């Protein structure tokens, strides 16, 4: 099996086969990381494409100080955040805004009418992702990478250029804030 450094060197030489290997190896990771931020499969696929084009164009800048996956995670996170900022996808900073959605409100109040379990799950996912989206940016990056992508605290530290205790603190605060936001939302909408 080709080593990571050889793969990088081959991609630097613009070797098509090596680039294909790189895409095959990291596509799932990039796709799911982007999806964790944008919550839309089509947007995540477009972003994955952008991420690999960026990798192809700037692979010469990769010096091998960090793991290749760390570098790719960083590009994926940056691309996703830029996408969100540009598209103003996250306008809701307070979960209360969700209760203004007639559709969601009705679904919560008339729970008994929901026969379809998948629909219920989808609705909960929407509420959960809105709550995650409303976290502060650093908490959100750390939390999403750890919870949705299962990235280790050490690697998150390298991706975000912060210390291990800082990562621990970010994730801890993210969990607490997420619970607070969800409790506040459900207290308001369940009764």
């Amino acid at each position, binding site marked *: 099996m080709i080593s990571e450094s050889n793969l990088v060197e081959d991609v630097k030489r613009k070797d*098509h086969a090596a*680039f*294909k290997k790189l*895409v*095959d190896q990291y*596509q*799932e990771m990039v*796709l*799911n990381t982007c*999806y964790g931020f944008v919550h839309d*499969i089509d947007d*995540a*696929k477009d972003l*994955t*494409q952008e991420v*690999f*084009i960026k990798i*192809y164009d700037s692979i010469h800048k990769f010096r091998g100080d960090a793991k290749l996956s760390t570098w790719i995670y960083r590009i994926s996170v940056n691309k996703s955040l830029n996408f969100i900022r540009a598209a103003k996808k996250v306008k809701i900073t307070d979960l209360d805004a969700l209760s203004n959605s007639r559709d969601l409100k009705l679904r919560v109040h008339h729970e008994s009418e929901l026969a379809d379990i998948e629909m219920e*799950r989808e609705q*909960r*996912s929407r*509420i*959960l992702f809105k709550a995650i989206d409303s976290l502060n940016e650093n908490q959100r990056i750390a939390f999403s990478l750890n*919870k*949705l992508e299962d990235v280790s605290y050490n690697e998150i530290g390298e991706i975000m250029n912060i210390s291990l205790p800082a990562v621990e603190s970010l994730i801890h605060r993210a*969990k*607490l804030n*997420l*619970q607070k936001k*969800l*409790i506040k939302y*459900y*207290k308001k909408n*369940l*009764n």
Partner: protein
Amino acid sequence: MKKQNKMKCKEVHKLIGPFLNGSMDVKKSGLFRSHLSECRSCEKLVGELSATLSILDEQKRILPDPFMHTRIWQEIENRQKTNVLFSVRRIVQPIMVAAILIIGIYIGIGLGNSYVSEAEEIASVDNRTLVDEFLFNEMDYEPIEIFLIDK
């Protein structure tokens, strides 16, 4: 004494996190469960929150797209072609603009020159006529005798 051991809704709301994480001690956990068995709204709240947070653990992985590499490679080739065209355009465009400007200036100067020389020609013809007919033939209109008579 019994009443003091019971948890209130407010306290339950504060402890939902530790309860769901499993980080609550046995005694508190018992009181928490006891409250849930008596309070329908808290039971519903904890149930909903638990179901929502559990989505994080069972989050579906999106499977890779088998055509992703082809799409990416196509896009890279398209961008490279566009970049070549853009580079050519970046070189050719100023040259074209400069050439058009020079041609324009040249035509302008040419037209300007030809216009001036025509005007001068007309003016010179008119002057000749004026000089011939009026300046040197004034005697035809004002004969010298008229001046002599006045004096």
